[in-house]
């Protein structure tokens, strides 16, 4: 147990960080399951970001509002990517 906690997990840190970041990014991008299971309902209780953008663009056909939302989402992705990129390149030099 100690070997696992003190040696294996710390050594795997860069890998774990990568996995966490990718998983959270994918969780934010979740679309399929919500779309099929609830369609955002009941009401808008399960309306995730992707689904909301989709509805604005392809149900209400408000392309410009959806584009504006897309730009903000893209900025958020850029920020996440920057953090991730730093982790990957720095983690590499240590390993």
């Amino acid at each position: 147990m100690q070997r696992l906690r003190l040696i294996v997990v710390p050594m795997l840190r860069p890998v774990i960080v990568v996995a966490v970041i990718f998983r959270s990014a994918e969780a934010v991008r979740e679309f399929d399951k919500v779309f099929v299971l609830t369609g955002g309902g009941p009401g808008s209780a399960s309306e995730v970001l992707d689904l909301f953008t989709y509805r604005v663009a392809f149900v209400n056909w408000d392309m410009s509002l959806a584009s504006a939302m897309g730009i903000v989402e893209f900025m958020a992705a850029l920020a996440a990517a920057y953090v991730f990129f730093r982790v990957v390149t720095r983690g590499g030099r240590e390993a």
Partner: protein
Amino acid sequence: MTGRLMPRTATGRRRVLTLGLAIVLVLMLLPYLWLVLTSLKNRTDIFSGDVFSAFTPTLDNFRLAFIQKGFARNLLNSTIVATTAMAIAMAVGVPAGYALSRTTARSGTFLLFVMLAARLMPVVVLAVPLFVIMANLGLVGTYAGPVVAHLTFLVPFVVWMMRGFFLAVPKELDEAALMDGATRARYFFTLLLPMTRGPLAATAIFALINSWNELLYGLILTNKLTATLPVATPSLMTPIGTFWGQIAAVGVVTTLPVLVFALLVQRHIVRGMTGGALSDG
């Protein structure tokens, strides 16, 4: 400390671990088993309330969905879109991954960053511009539409994954081959690619699966004739009732190739995911 979670001996510990993993495995596989069973049942058996009891298996659901309701067509669409997108992504992404694994130039680093941003971006961000472009080009409802759309996430994926594998190939090998008079292209095609056959196959299959499972772009860029399997499946949930048996049948057929391929490349999958993290950037 009393009541330890882990027994003291190694064999005891192994036993606890095996049991734990077995429980998790069963929990994760049960829904899939449910799906497979449902696809083989008639309508009465599906709602009998007893999922795992004996029943008379029938292939009616497969026949109804694929032959009568034309899901064979969707299967073909999915195959065409996924293989084309995968082939183009590999043709573009693999050389790019190699180049980016060898460069130290700022522009190269910047390109890598852009590729990463593209991977982390919500797909819906590109859905709007892609739809407008495709509509203006008259490509909505063709195979080209979803193929191009899938490339927006497949190419960064292939680049990042292959770059990780190429980083594991020592630079000295490049230098030795170039020293012996091979051109870079010749080295790349006759030495490097055969050497990374396993990773190449894993990346290709992963790209294939990603494209195969994609829903959103397929939803907005296809019509009734070119819809892929994930796009067409919800059409079985109708106002007069949901055809669970047929949905399950389509589900089984959709997951079957993914399952087979995943088992084939299982060994390379984990390494590919984490390869970029451990090698130096």
